[in-house]
């Protein structure tokens, strides 16, 4: 029986009332008294020497308060990078400066050169057009391999080359892997591109800076997934504002997908300018600006080799990847192709030897950083594509080949430094075969054939690592941050609860699912619990939401805080009932004394905590409010198996996904409806990457896919109905809820599923096609069929 409340119930999303009725409070809804507007003048060339910026005409334009250029930020720190990668030779990565406004060079189309603050948005834009920057054009580097060639133009003059780092993992395995590949019975090799994506959150980025001369406090309202991280990075590294004088607020945020994790120049600018002008300063990105300034995702070029023995057991994997960093290091960019990618290369399989080489490259393009899945989709894509290719080369069933090599005993130490605590990959595959109706495939294929269409089926597995942790380990790996989470559970006098979480919800439904957890622990109605997030002024220092970490890390912190609250409440209840604390039980919001009919209600205890007339004041303090910080012992490892069937129109190359089935093991599930929704969204993004989305620069570094006229976002009619199942549950062994995280799974597991299915369809149709790079547009599929 499905539950109707608490953990496991498909409670309707309470936040949707405001989102669906237009009563949300987004950053752009915030307008402050005396607010001025900024417009950024952005570079229209990809690479050039900035010799001068003449702002005199702009300064004389109506409504202009001030024009800022790079010179105004000469004494201000640049945007920091939050992760330092050490290369194969033990050297730190090359880390270029990232000025708030361009200082000496422009390095990508969209690089901000100057900023006009004016009374109105239109006045700021008008004046920006009157600025005259002198830019001496330089040849741009766009292609990663060309960027590494001898004599290639350098994106950063002060660096040795365009190579950020050359990372080897596990470096000690390099020779052993090479030998295993040389001596293998069979080696399958595949070269592929993981296409660059633009996150395209529905809400563009917005920043409003404010400053109070009375208190000396700065406030930044911003579209961020992690306001505390922005407060720390911007306060400590860019502007030199101590945290107690800097408040960062991220109210309702309309989607992030990673692109709103990072600290951006516009945030620092608005905060800085508000103080300089003593006026609130607001910036709202246009969609065109989002294409040129939001960190983009993926963009890997990879060669992968899979070695198998004569019995088709995997013996070694070797990969060489070029990973595009863009023109600057975005906040967490270096970690994505390394620790979030190399550590996942074992997938769901027992492969004793793995070596991953990643060359991160600077180019004259928009910076690249984490995007839904961040490194894990790139790992899964290459691994699951090469396994599929191997199965075809060996003439074995792709599912049987996978099953044969599955990890089946847990915990399992991979050769790439992570330990899977739990899982059951055969169970998810069994479930997949059931819900995807494999038995009906032949009949459906015959129907497609009758319509002149080629039908194929793709299957793959994925594993991901969520809730990056623990902090002391990630510190050794180069993270310049902790990765714990925090929560304060504040019980009010009449029993209602306000939870302040360091996690941040930008569409995930935390306000509903987090409330379900706390309500369930106490046995009260979820309506008695309110979740607050997104304001550094009233939430404890938290690390925010990304990497499917919120329920596993943030939820665990909340559980720990609630446990402390319950322990104290039991002391109070024991006092009220004149019983021993050890005998107190809490069930359905009632405290009772074991073996008696004595009980007091939750509300009686909470009232006593704040009106402590009859209260053990000599033993405990009044009040009922506890905070916990939770630092996980390990990652969590969600895993699953996906299948889809496609129809390919051989005349046009158009691919239609007819059906898609996803079985995921997320451990315990708090709200099945929300989890299904997260999977649906992830699938849509993964299918978008597989079939539609591509970020294309021309040779001079101009972005060709710079609007929705050319950047194909997935739409509802591109999607099939999804069969989603998360009934296979092996609970996480090291967090109190037994949860693993579900936000990225769909985007990780779906791209190889689709590509495997299209290759299957073409091969069944008699076409000798072994691989097509994403996105599988009609033109590309048709071209592949032409041989």
């Amino acid at each position, binding site marked *: 029986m499905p539950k109707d409340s608490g953990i496991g119930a498909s409670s309707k999303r309470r936040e949707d009332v405001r989102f669906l009725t237009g009563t949300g409070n987004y950053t752009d809804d915030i307008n402050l008294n005396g607010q001025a507007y900024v417009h950024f003048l952005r570079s229209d060339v990809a690479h050039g020497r900035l010799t001068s910026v003449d702002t005199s005409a702009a300064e004389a334009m109506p409504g202009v308060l001030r024009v800022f250029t790079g010179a105004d930020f000469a004494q201000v720190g640049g945007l920091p990078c939050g992760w330092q990668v050490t290369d194969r030779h033990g050297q730190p990565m090359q880390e270029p400066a990232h000025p708030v406004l361009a200082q000496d060079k422009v390095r990508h189309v969209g690089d901000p050169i100057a900023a006009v603050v004016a009374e109105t948005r239109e006045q700021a834009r008008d004046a920006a057009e009157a600025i005259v920057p002198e830019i001496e054009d330089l040849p741009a580097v766009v292609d990663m391999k060309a960027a590494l060639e001898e004599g290639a133009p350098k994106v950063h003059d002060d660096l040795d080359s365009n190579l950020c780092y050359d990372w080897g993992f596990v470096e000690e395995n390099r020779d052993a892997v090479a030998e295993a590949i040389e001596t293998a019975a069979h080696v399958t090799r595949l070269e592929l591109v993981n296409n660059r994506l633009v996150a395209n959150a529905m809400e563009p980025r917005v920043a409003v800076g404010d400053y109070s001369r009375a208190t000396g406090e700065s406030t930044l309202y911003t579209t961020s997934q992690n306001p505390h991280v922005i407060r720390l990075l911007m306060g400590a590294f860019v502007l030199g504002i101590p945290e107690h004088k800097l408040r960062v607020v991220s109210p309702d945020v309309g989607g992030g997908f990673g692109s709103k994790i990072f600290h951006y120049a516009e945030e620092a600018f608005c905060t800085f300018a508000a103080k300089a002008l003593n006026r609130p300063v607001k910036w709202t990105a246009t969609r065109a600006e989002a294409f040129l300034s939001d960190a983009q995702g993926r963009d890997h070029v990879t060669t992968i080799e899979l070695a198998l023995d004569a019995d088709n057991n995997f013996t070694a994997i070797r990969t060489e990847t070029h990973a595009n960093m863009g023109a600057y290091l975005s906040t967490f960019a270096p970690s994505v192709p390394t620790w979030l990618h190399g550590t996942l290369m074992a997938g769901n399989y027992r492969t004793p030897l793995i070596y991953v080489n990643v060359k991160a490259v600077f180019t004259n393009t928009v910076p690249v950083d984490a995007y839904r899945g961040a490194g894990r989709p790139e790992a899964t894509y290459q691994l699951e594509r090469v396994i599929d290719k191997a199965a075809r080369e060996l003439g074995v069933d792709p599912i049987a080949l996978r099953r044969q090599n599955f990890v089946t005993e847990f915990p399992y130490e991979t050769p790439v430094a992570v330990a899977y605590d739990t899982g059951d990959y055969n169970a998810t595959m069994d479930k997949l075969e059931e819900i995807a109706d494999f038995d009906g495939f032949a009949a459906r294929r015959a129907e497609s054939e009758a319509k002149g269409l080629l039908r194929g089926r793709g299957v793959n597995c994925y594993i991901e690592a969520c809730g990056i942790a623990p902090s002391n380990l990630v510190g050794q790996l180069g993270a310049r941050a902790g990765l714990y989470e925090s929560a304060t559970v504040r019980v009010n006098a009449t029993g209602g609860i306000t939870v302040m979480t360091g996690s941040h919800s930008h569409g995930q439904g935390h306000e509903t699912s987090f409330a379900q957890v706390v309500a369930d622990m106490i046995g009260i109605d979820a309506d008695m619990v309110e979740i607050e997030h997104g304001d550094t002024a009233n939430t404890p220092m938290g690390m925010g939401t990304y990497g499917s970490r919120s329920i596993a890390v943030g939820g665990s912190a909340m559980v720990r805080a609630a446990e402390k609250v319950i322990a104290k409440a039991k002391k109070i209840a024991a006092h009220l009932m004149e019983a021993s604390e050890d005998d107190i039980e809490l069930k359905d919001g009632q405290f009772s004394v074991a073996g008696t009919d004595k009980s007091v209600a939750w509300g009686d205890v909470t009232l006593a905590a704040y009106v402590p007339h009859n209260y053990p004041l000599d033993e405990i303090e009044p009040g009922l409010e506890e905070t916990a910080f939770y630092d996980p012992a390990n990652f969590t490892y969600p895993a699953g198996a996906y299948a889809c069937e496609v129809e390919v129109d051989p005349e046009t190359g158009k691919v239609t996904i007819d059906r898609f089935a996803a079985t995921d093991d997320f451990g315990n599930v708090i709200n099945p409806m929300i989890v299904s929704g997260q999977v649906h969204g992830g699938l849509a993004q993964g299918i978008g990457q597989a079939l539609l989305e591509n970020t294309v620069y021309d040779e001079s570094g101009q972005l*060709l896919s710079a609007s929705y006229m050319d950047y194909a976002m997935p739409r509802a009619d591109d999607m099939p109905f999804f069969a989603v199942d998360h009934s296979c549950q092996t609970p996480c062994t090291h967090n109190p809820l037994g949860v693993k995280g579900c936000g990225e799974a769909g985007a990780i597991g779906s791209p190889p599923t689709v590509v495997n299915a299209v290759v299957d369809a073409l091969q069944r149709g008699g076409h000798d096609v072994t691989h097509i790079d994403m996105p599988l547009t*009609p033109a590309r599929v*048709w071209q592949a069929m032409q041989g």
Partner: protein
Amino acid sequence: MYAFDFERPTTIDAAVKALQSEEAQALGGGQTLIPTLKQRLAMPATLVSLTAIKEMQGICEDDQGRLCIGGATTHAQVAREAAGRYPALADLAANVGDPAVRNRGTIGGSLANNDPSACYPAAALASGATIVTNDREIAADDYFQGMFTTALEEGEIIIEVRFPVPQAAAYAKFEQPASRFALVGAFVARFDDGVRVAITGASEEGVFRWSVAEDALTADFSAGALEGLRLSGEGMISDLHGSGDYRAHLAGVMTRRAAAAGG
């Protein structure tokens, strides 16, 4: 947007007069012009909206049996009201853009803009329509003069489009995945005196008639009649959505599909 003056005349004469002022620009449904203005890619001094001119709206039939569509008639209205008389045209209109586009965008606006990937030019050219302006009547064969180029003079506005109604017709569109404009669209129309085929989306010269296909279909109005006919990729648009060769190939596929649907 830059600042501009806005006029909304209620008669054709008033609109023509308003368009004579310096840097004046006619505004139909605004589905191309408004995004262009928002990006500050155009700077008209005056926008003259044609949406309040009653005599430019609606659909009727003239004494030659032609379907006459007012220049300011929206795609949605064509989709609704032409369905009985000219279903292929109504079907084309029903699949332009999305509901928001169809409820604002107009046939006159589309034809005046002559986007190389727009649908309406294919219908007008394949139907042998007459474009009626405030000044004259222009045959479709003379009207389309290349990408975003037409026979319209400065300040001339399309007040009506007259479509001869074919015995059979169909439009087959292959959508560009991002914009969902026609990557290639083929409109096939069969009349007493022969078949006309117009291809949109493909050529660097904008919409064009595929005469070889017309001859084949005039002899035998079936998809099979087109077997083996090929356009060259030379002169076709080549961009990130497909090569010239691919577009040329699609033109063949879409023409066959249109012939099959119309047959």
